[in-house]
């Protein structure tokens, strides 16, 4: 700890206004504030503050993602680490470039985006595609709108969407069979994306051709799918962590789960051939991961609490409809992106209702 402090202290002059690396100052600040908490005096009331800060907030999201991450390491081997590294590196370059040009600090939101992005990709995705998707996601999904806090769309989903449309063939062929034996195949399994890797189909893909995967496999995760979304158990542990700490808003999750269950149940009763039953819909595909970790992203969802219900309900309904009535196998990604578009409208509705209530309250204050 003292060593790090000394290093940071000694390199500080390079990043000052006249130092030779002054343009890289955001990187220095990010490292400095990562290792040692930032201290600043309050200048206006309230002079004491709550200790919650954005770093802690994002850290807890990553802690909640840990079970899913560890499950993915178990099922898909050390390649996941490589995907994670490439995602952080590529997205990080964009993030740093924008921070340098804008002369702002690097925001913590990227740590979560970079972590989530590989978890929503098929494990066999070629590394150059991971880099391309990460760059696109951070650039078009976030930085173009103004950076963290101002983006309209979930940056990781924008990257995923880009890859799905730009390289559809390669994405569908990148599903790998799960199994811990990949750790024994080091280092070969690291770069496995070659045609001789064992590929498999996902439960949703199988369902389209009428083959239903066993629920226990769906729950534990011994199935094909995106890196982080296969194990419902791991995601649920993370969900409980997020809900207990209050980091994720329960309204989005409950609204989404309820709406998906209701829609799937009703439509399955009416059209059993086209729509899978609610139990399957809940556990299969990226639904659970999406509703717990992506729909609850505070920046891209509605800002007002009542609107979060509508947001969750919309996403649940759309997921069922897209899965059942479109050419796509998985609907969660598009449902969430569509929800992102509608979120400001939902907020606006809540605001209109509040305006009326405020006028009534002024009359009798």
């Amino acid at each position, binding site marked *: 700890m003292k060593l790090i402090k000394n290093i940071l202290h000694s390199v500080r002059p390079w990043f000052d206004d006249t130092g030779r690396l002054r343009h890289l100052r955001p990187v220095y600040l990010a490292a400095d504030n990562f290792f040692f908490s930032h201290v600043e005096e309050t200048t*206006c009331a309230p002079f004491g503050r709550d200790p919650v800060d954005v770093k802690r907030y994002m850290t807890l999201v990553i802690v909640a993602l840990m079970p899913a991450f560890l499950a993915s390491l178990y099922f898909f081997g050390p390649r996941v680490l490589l995907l994670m590294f490439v995602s952080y590196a590529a997205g990080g370059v964009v993030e740093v470039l924008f921070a340098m040009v804008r002369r702002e600090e690097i925001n913590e939101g990227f740590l979560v985006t970079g972590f989530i992005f590989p978890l929503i990709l098929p494990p066999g995705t070629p590394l150059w595609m991971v880099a391309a998707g990460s760059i696109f996601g951070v650039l078009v999904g976030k930085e173009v709108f103004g950076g963290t*806090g101002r983006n309209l769309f979930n940056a990781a989903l924008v990257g995923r969407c880009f890859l799905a449309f730009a390289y559809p063939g390669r994405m569908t062929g990148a599903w790998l069979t799960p199994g811990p034996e990949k750790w024994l195949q080091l280092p070969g399994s690291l770069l496995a994306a070659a045609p001789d890797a064992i590929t498999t189909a996902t439960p949703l893909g199988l369902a389209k051709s009428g083959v239903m995967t066993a629920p226990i496999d769906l729950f534990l995760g011994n199935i094909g799918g995106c890196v982080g979304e296969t194990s419902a158990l791991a995601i649920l542990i993370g969900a409980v962590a997020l809900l207990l700490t209050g980091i994720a808003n329960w309204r989005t999750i409950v609204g989404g789960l309820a709406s998906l269950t209701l829609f799937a149940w009703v439509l399955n009763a009416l059209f059993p051939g086209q729509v899978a039953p609610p139990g399957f819909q809940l556990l299969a595909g990226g639904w659970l991961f999406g509703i717990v970790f992506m729909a609850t992203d*505070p920046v891209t969802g509605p800002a007002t609490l009542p609107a979060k219900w509508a947001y969750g309900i919309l996403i649940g309904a759309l997921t069922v409809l897209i899965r059942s009535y479109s050419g796509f196998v998985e609907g969660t990604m598009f449902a969430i992106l569509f929800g992102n578009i509608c979120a400001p409208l939902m907020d606006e509705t809540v605001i209109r209702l509040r305006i009326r209530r405020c006028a009534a309250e002024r009359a009798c*204050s």
Partner: protein
Amino acid sequence: MKLQGGYLPRVPGRPSAAVRDIAVPERLVIPLNRHGLQYTPAINDGDAVSFGVPLAWAETAGGRVALPAPASGVVAITPAGKNSAPCMTLQVTDAQVKASGSKHTPERMDPQALRQALAAGGIWPLIRSSKTGGMPVLDGSETPARIMVSFVAAEPFRTCGNTVLAEARERVLAGLRVLPRLMTDSGILHLVLTDPTDAAFQAVRAQTAGDARVRIEQAPLRYPVEHPRVLCRALRRGDRTLKPDDVIWVLDVQAVQAIGACLAEGLPLHERVIAVGGPGLAAPGHVRARIGTPLASLLPPEAAAGNNLILRGGLFQGVPVEPAATAIDAHDDAFFVLSRLAEREFLGFVTPGFDRVSFLPIFGTALTGSADRHLTASLRGERRPCVACGLCEQVCPMALLPQMIHRYLYRDALDEAQSIGLDLCIGCGLCAYVCPSKIELRQQFADAQARLREERAHTAAAHREHQEQLEKREQQRKT
């Protein structure tokens, strides 16, 4: 009584219940402009005054309010300087408290006489009216339909009603007997407290038992339940028989005690019970001090040292003051001491946090229930853009949308911000307190409210001028 939002963090430095008397110092300092009232001296520089004599009067719409001498002595008047307000210094010759006004039988006084007595005793400014937003009008044109006495003072660490009640029970009871005479005939006196079964409240319950004009309300112990606007709002929401133009007065227990002392014993307002607390103090406690006592007399010497921030008020609404330049005034009931020092922790964001308390249960103290030992006058984080986490909305006691008001103000859309309730903000500071992005919401809203008032005043003035010009032209046309 229901409160929406609100939050009370576990903060160390709670003052002990016993009230210590502070000896009356040699010099008392009394500012002449405070809390919106401007006092003009009623005596000359160098005059000797005895206890209770009005030092100055403030002219208001309905009458005048006195500033009584808190002790006998010789007065020196310092006129307004470049950076300072006018104030009086009293060189104390005799600190004894003697009944100055005639003792009244409050039960026989009519409301007008009661109001005059309270105004002469300097107590009238302690009452807050929902109609004016400050002191009620003195001429009796506003008679309240309800009076609320708040025994709660949730903000860390204001003097709460039970402490005052324990110290001056008879005066509080006398004050409570008088209040119904100031209301309308169908008026109701509401006593707001967190625990009506508390033993300290026994005497009040005994006196008011069976009185149909007195109601006891239970309020949750969450800041800012004691704020007058929050209390009025909770009362209106809970009682739909209240009409929009009914007036509600709010007082705290110190004001009631002062009323009792004034009317039953003939004593003007001369002292305050103040809670001096906070993590920066080794021995936080309550003190009783004469109005005008310099702040330095209340604080232990090490507290006034450079590394401490001393707030006049509580944790949330307190403003920093210099002990050397500050004296107790009639509205004080809390001083909060915070250390300025904060260390840079190694990997602070992953700490299990058994020494800090947050609104969200994200630290170890959520399991242990201990207090926030890490609280200092520090931002505790870095400034970031709004991430729409919604914590401010959860905590707002007026059920506003602070995140949306912030977004509007960020774009300078003052009218839109006003439409969703900027003017309803009471400035409690909870939104800024819980914000993870450390946005100065309270300051931003206060600045915007000031700009709105300025614009309104400007528009009103322009409108008046325009009307006068039109009338002048009309006159000219006629002649």
